[in-house]
């Protein structure tokens, strides 16, 4: 597939996933993510992978986790209602340390909501939707090219840290068709989970000196038990406060201590900015257009685009807030990422929100920027 294409975002994500090594897809089609399942059904057999259409979204993620534990790079994709159903198994993937990728092509909610129209209403669910304590990694693509590129990032991060990683797309970026350049295989960097570096007879899972322990795969002679219960290093259940204290903080530290490495963002025109616009996902383009229009009328605006909404880029937000008089967060929900911005910003933070169904036009963002500076 190396070369130039005119491709739909959902399909570009499939190609990025395959380029990253994905060879197992299980899912239940749902608008506006169905093109992912459709293309996967065609592409997986061609690359020696497997595609299964499962009865529902809980089963889909369960199958993905199973495939991951068997050694495959695996993923599923869905939209709001299915994402809700997947929450339980996101926790399972965290607890089993099973690397996998879950894609949410967001549409308007709550419930069935707006099946064919865009929203960014699942951003907090992405972070907090499963029960218990954990850290989350999520990428928010804003172009067709990024659907490809961020799929690769998502797989690499999932494999390096043995965690589920989310791609938080939306109906606009998922279903629009635009230019995509697929680099050659040699240009694409691909990670795989850490494996034991000793033969089976010398292997002991009791070594927890590494934050990300090597993952043993079935059929290679290594012994390991796996359970969703709080467990010891051998994987056997041990439901005690002391075991919880050694397991859960390590699962969190895997991400926390590597935050510098994982967090990604993009800053433009911030050097002399007096007002900062914060956007992510499909709002990238309209946001950038609005900032350029603001500059033309003398408003010193700049933009901070969150590539990883999670872990939240807190340092860039802190820095931004020390530089500007005010921040505007523009997002297609009634106020989600704005809460995290407020948590770290030391300046007034304003919100431009919409319940979903459409993306903001650059003129609307420009009007909001004008209001913020007066």
């Amino acid at each position, binding site marked *: 597939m190396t070369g*130039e*294409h*005119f491709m739909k975002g959902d399909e570009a994500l499939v190609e990025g996933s395959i380029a990253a090594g994905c060879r197992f897809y299980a899912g239940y089609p749902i608008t506006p993510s169905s093109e992912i399942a459709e293309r996967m059904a065609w592409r997986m057999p061609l690359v020696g992978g497997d595609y299964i259409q499962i009865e529902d979204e809980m089963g889909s993620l369960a199958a993905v986790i199973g495939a991951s534990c068997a050694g495959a790079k695996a993923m599923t994709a869905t939209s709001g209602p299915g994402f809700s159903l997947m929450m339980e198994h996101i926790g399972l993937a965290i607890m089993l340390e099973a690397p996998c990728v879950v894609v949410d092509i967001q549409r308007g909610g709550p419930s069935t909501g707006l099946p*064919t129209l865009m929203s960014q209403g699942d951003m907090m669910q992405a972070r907090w939707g499963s029960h218990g304590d954990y850290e989350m990694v999520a990428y928010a693509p804003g172009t067709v090219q990024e659907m490809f590129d961020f799929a690769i990032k998502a797989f690499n991060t999932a494999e390096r840290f043995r965690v589920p990683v989310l791609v938080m797309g939306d109906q*606009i970026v998922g*279903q*629009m*068709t*635009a*230019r995509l350049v697929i680099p050659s295989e040699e240009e694409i960097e691909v990670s795989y989970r850490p494996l034991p570096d000793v033969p089976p007879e010398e292997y002991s899972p009791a070594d927890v000196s590494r934050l990300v322990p090597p993952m043993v795969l079935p059929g290679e002679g290594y012994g390991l038990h796996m359970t969703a219960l709080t467990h010891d290093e051998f994987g056997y259940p041990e439901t005690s406060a002391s075991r919880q204290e050694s397991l859960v903080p390590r699962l969190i530290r895997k991400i926390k201590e590597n935050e510098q490495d994982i967090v990604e963002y993009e800053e433009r025109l911030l050097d002399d900015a007096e007002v900062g616009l914060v956007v992510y996902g*499909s709002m990238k*383009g*309209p946001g*950038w*257009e609005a900032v350029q229009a603001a500059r033309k009328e003398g408003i010193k605006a700049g933009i901070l685009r969150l590539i990883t909404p999670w872990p939240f880029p807190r340092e860039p937000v802190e820095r931004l807030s020390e530089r500007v008089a005010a921040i505007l967060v523009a997002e297609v929900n009634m106020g989600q990422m704005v809460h995290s911005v407020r948590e770290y910003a030391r300046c007034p933070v304003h919100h431009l929100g919409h319940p979903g169904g459409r*993306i903001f*036009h*650059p003129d609307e963002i420009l009007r909001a920027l004008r209001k913020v500076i007066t």
Partner: protein
Amino acid sequence: MRTEIRMAGFGGQGIITMGKILGRAAVIYDRRPAVLTEDYGPEKIGGWSKADLVLSDEEIQYPLVDRLDIFLALSQDGYEMFHHTLRVDGQALFESDLVNPEKGWKQRTTFIPALQTASDMGKKVVANIVMIGALVELTQVVSVKAAKKAILDSIPKGTEDLNEAAFSKGRELAREEGG
């Protein structure tokens, strides 16, 4: 310069295929940025369908259409749903037998008998290719060469001659009708 095109009709007419062909022509062969978004009424077979294409000389930031420069309708429903989105100085292309604009419709309009032409050629399904020929001739939104290549990329093997003929016929009609 930014050009916004909307194509509207009903499911099965190849409206979205038209968008894909034109977008592909722009991006792959004319090497200009283009973004296609599509939408359709899922409630019934033969429901409305539309493809929106933004063409530009610069990277496209806002991917949706706002004020249409060109509006192409292949069904009365398509016309009625979206005709108000065409700019006052915009260009309309309507299928002659399927679209009747209301009295007082003032925008520059070319009627193309795409369906009849395609029927005469023996395959109604190439009506959309006839329309692409007419559109390219009238507006030069993509080059003739690019459009031809993108059509050949997008059609089933063995139908090359038919589609090329449909494209040429569309250009001819536009020259005649567009005057």
